[in-house]
C-alpha cells in the first residue's frame, strides 16, 4: 500500500493562502487513493506557478516549456504506455500558449490526465490577464480592463467530445481529490479544470467569490448525457458547477499501435533481420 509520506512533503515557493497548496494535497491524496507508486507516475509540466507543483512531490517529472506539456506527454505516453502520465500546469500554459495542443490532445484522446490550475490570472509574471480572465478584469498590463471574452475550457472540452471533463475548486479539496482520482482512473484524455484564488494578483476572483458561486453537481446528474453536459458546461457566473461534467468511452489513441501493448518502446529495439527486409522494396 502506498501512503502519502511516500509522495513527500516539501517547502514550496508559493504565497501563503495560494490555492496551489490545497490542490497539491488533493493531488497527493488522489495518487494514494489510486494506489499508484511514485515511480510509476510521470508528471509533465510547463512554466508558471502551477507548473512547479510536481517539484513538490516525489514522482518522475519532465518540467518543460511554457505551453508545451501536452505534446511532451503525448510522446512520453506513446513511448511507454505503462506509465501513468499526468500533465499539470496553469490556465496560461494550457489555454493560452498551448491552446492548439489542448485542442489536439482532446481530438487525439490518449489515456493521460490534464490538471489545470485555473486562477484566471498570470501569477509567475506578476498579474497579467489570462485566457480565462473575466471581461473588464483590470491589471497593470490591461489598465482599461480585458476586452476579449474568457475561454471556457469545460465548455470547449465538452463541445469537442472530450473523454472526461471535470471542474474542481481548491476550496473543496476532498471533492477535488475524488475528481482527480476519477480522472486518473478514466481511460482516455481527462481534463480537470481546478478553480483557485490567486491571493496576490487576482482581487476579483477571491476565495469568497468562488465559494459563493461554486456548487457540487447534484447526485442524479448523468455525466454520460451529452446534451445535459453541454448545458451544464455553459453554466458560468452566478452559479458554477463542480464535478464530473461529462465522460464517454471514446477509443484511445495508443490502441491503434498494437505493439505498444508489448511494453515500453525502449525495451523493443529494432531487429537487424527485420531491417534487412526493408531494403527489398527499393531494389
Amino acid at each position: 500500500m502506498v501512503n502519502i509520506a511516500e509522495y513527500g512533503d516539501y517547502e514550496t515557493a508559493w504565497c501563503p493562502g495560494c490555492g496551489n497548496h490545497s490542490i497539491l494535497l488533493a493531488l497527493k491524496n488522489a495518487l494514494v487513493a489510486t494506489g499508484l507508486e511514485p515511480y510509476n507516475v510521470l508528471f509533465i509540466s510547463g512554466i508558471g506557478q502551477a507548473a512547479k507543483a510536481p517539484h513538490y512531490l516525489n514522482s518522475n517529472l519532465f518540467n518543460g516549456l511554457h505551453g508545451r506539456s501536452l505534446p511532451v506527454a503525448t510522446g512520453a505516453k506513446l513511448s511507454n504506455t505503462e506509465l501513468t502520465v499526468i500533465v499539470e500546469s496553469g490556465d496560461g500554459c494550457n489555454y493560452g500558449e498551448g491552446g492548439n495542443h489542448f485542442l489536439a490532445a482532446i481530438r487525439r484522446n490518449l489515456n493521460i490526465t490534464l490538471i489545470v490550475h485555473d486562477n484566471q490570472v498570470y501569477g509567475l509574471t506578476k498579474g497579467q490577464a489570462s485566457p480565462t480572465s473575466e471581461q473588464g478584469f483590470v491589471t497593470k498590463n490591461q489598465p482599461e480592463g480585458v476586452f476579449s471574452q474568457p475561454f471556457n475550457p469545460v465548455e470547449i472540452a465538452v463541445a469537442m467530445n472530450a473523454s472526461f471533463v471535470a471542474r474542481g475548486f481548491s476550496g473543496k479539496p476532498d471533492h477535488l481529490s475524488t475528481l482527480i482520482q476519477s480522472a486518473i482512473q478514466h481511460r482516455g484524455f481527462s481534463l480537470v479544470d481546478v478553480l483557485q484564488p490567486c491571493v496576490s494578483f487576482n482581487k476579483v476572483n477571491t476565495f469568497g467569490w468562488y465559494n459563493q458561486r461554486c456548487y457540487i453537481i447534484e447526485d442524479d446528474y448523468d455525466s454520460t448525457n451529452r446534451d445535459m453536459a453541454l448545458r451544464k458546461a455553459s453554466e458560468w457566473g452566478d452559479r458554477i458547477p463542480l464535478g464530473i461534467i461529462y465522460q464517454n468511452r471514446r477509443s484511445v489513441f495508443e490502441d491503434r499501435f498494437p505493439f505498444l501493448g508489448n511494453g515500453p518502446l525502449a525495451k523493443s529495439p529494432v531487429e537487424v533481420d527485420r531491417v534487412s527486409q526493408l531494403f527489398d522494396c527499393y531494389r
Partner: protein
Amino acid sequence: MEKLDLNVVIAGEAGQGLVTLSQILTKTLVRAGYYIVVTQSYQSRIRGGHNSYALRISHREVVAPTEALDLLVALDQNSINLYLPELSDHGFILVDEKVSSTVHSRVIRAPLADLADDKFSNSTALGMVASLLGLHKDSVTRTLREFFDKHAPGTSDHNAESLAAGYDWILNYPVKFPKLHPSTLPEGRLTLNGNEAIALGSISAGMKFFAFYPMTPATSIATTLAGHAAQMEFVIEQAEDEISAVNMAVGASFTGAPAMVATSGGGFALMTETVSLAGMTETPVVIVVAQRPGPSTGLPTRTEQSDLEFVLHSGHGEFPRAIFTPGDVEQCFHLTIKAFQVAQKYNTPVFLLTDQFLADSYRSVGPFDLGQLSPLNPCLDSCVSANPHLTYLLTESGISPRIFPGMASQCVRASSSSELVIADSDEHTQDGHLTEDLSVRISMVEKRLRKIDGLKSEVVGPEFIGTAGPETLFVSWGSSRGSVIEAADILAGRGRSVATLNFLQVWPLIPENFVSILEAAKDVVAVEGNATGQFARLIRRETGFHIKKVIHRFDGLPITPKYILDRI
C-alpha cells in the same frame, strides 16, 4: 554510337503522371546497373505548373546533375518551348503528335493515340524512351508491372501492352540516338533518394518514434516512414504543428524511445525553443532540416543551402550540438545512423542538414553492409547513477547516465522512489529539480559544455580528394559535394592542379583536421548554395582562415559542375 553519359528530362504539367513514368524508368536503369543522378524540379502546385524530372545516366559513376539535354520527353508544348534551345547536337525531343505541332528535325512526334489507349499513353512513351536508350524490353516491362500491380491492380496488362507498342514503334523509326554504354554494376543495388535514405537510416539506427508536420521538401521522409511503421513497430504521428512534433519527440526520448523529427526552415523556426529545451534537459533528439530557399516561404519547392547559420545558432543559450551534412544519398543513410548514435551518447540535439535537391535526388546506391549494423538499444546503457538516481550527475565527460521513468538500470521495472527521473528546463541541481543556486549554475553549464570534447572526438572529418598542395582547392559542404568533385575532375583533365575538400559534418569543426590543407592550396574556392558564403565565414570565424573566393548559387537550382566551371 555510344555516349558516356546521357541526360534525359521528362517534363510537363504536374498531375500528368510524369513522376510515375520517371520512377519506373529510374528503377529500370538502376536494376540494369547504371549510375544515375536525378534532379526534380517542381512548382508548388498540385496540378498544373511546370515540373521536370532530369535523369542523368552513365555506366561510370556520376555524382552531379548536369544541364546537358540529350532526350526530352515533353508532355506539353510548354516543355518544348522551354527546352528546345538547350537540346544537345545529337539530342531528340519525344512528344505526342496531338500535344505539339512543332516541326523540327530533332522532334519525334509520336502517334501515341494510334498505338494505345489514351489512358496508357505514358506507358507508351516510356516504352519509346526505353527503346531509344537501348534498354531491354523485358526489364522495363517487369518494373512497370511491379509498379502497377502495387498501385493500380488490374491495369498491368494494358500498361505493358502500351509499353511494348511504344518500344516497337521506335525500333522502326529512323533515328540515330546514342545508346548507353553497357553497364557493369552487379545486381542488387537500391534506388533511393536522400529522404528515403534518411528514413531507412533512422530505422536502421533504432528509431522508435517519429513526429512531423508536413513541409516540403522534408515530407517524403514521413511518407517513407509511414509505409514501414507498422512492420517495424515504431510510432509515427502527424502533429498539430512543428512545435508539437519536436516536443513529442523530446517526450518520447525522455521515456526511452530514440526519436526524430524532420522539417524545413520555416517549420524548424518553430522548433527552435525546443532545440534549446533538449540541450538543457539533455534529451537526445535527431532533427532533419531539409533546406529550401528562404527567407520566409521563399521558393517552397526549390533548393538552397542557406540555413547553416540558422541551425548552428538555433535555440537560445549555450549547449552542445552536432550538425551532419551528407553529400550524397549513401551518406544520408550512414550519417543518419551516426546522428542517432551521437545524440544518444551525448544526450543532446543532433542535426542532419540536407536540401531539396538531395532530398529528391534518386541515385543508384550499393547495397548497405548491414553486418556491422547495431541498432540502438537504450536499455543496455541505462544505468541508475546514484542512490537516489541523479539525472544530471556531474561527470568528467559531462555525460550523465540515464534511466527512463518507470524503469531502473537495464530497463528493469522500477521498484523504489530512488529510481525517479526528474528533468527540468530551468537550471537544475543534479537531481533535476530547479535551482537558483548560482554555483550550481556554473557547474551545470560547464558539465553540459564538457560534452563538446566528446562530440569532437566523434567528428566525421572532411573528405579530401586530390593531390596535396593544389593550385585550386574547392571547399564544399552537403549536397554541393558531387558537383565540386566533377568540376575538379574536368579541370584536372585539362591539366589543372585541383583538389576538393568536402565537409560531411560542419559542427563541431576541428581546425587541425583541415587548416593545413587550406593553407597548402594556392587558391581556395568555397562553393555554396547561398548568397553569403555561410560556411566560408564559419571557417574564418573558427580558424582565422579567410576563404576569399566563394561561388554562390541562390536561384533555387542545384549547383552543377558547369555552374562552377563558368565561374572559376
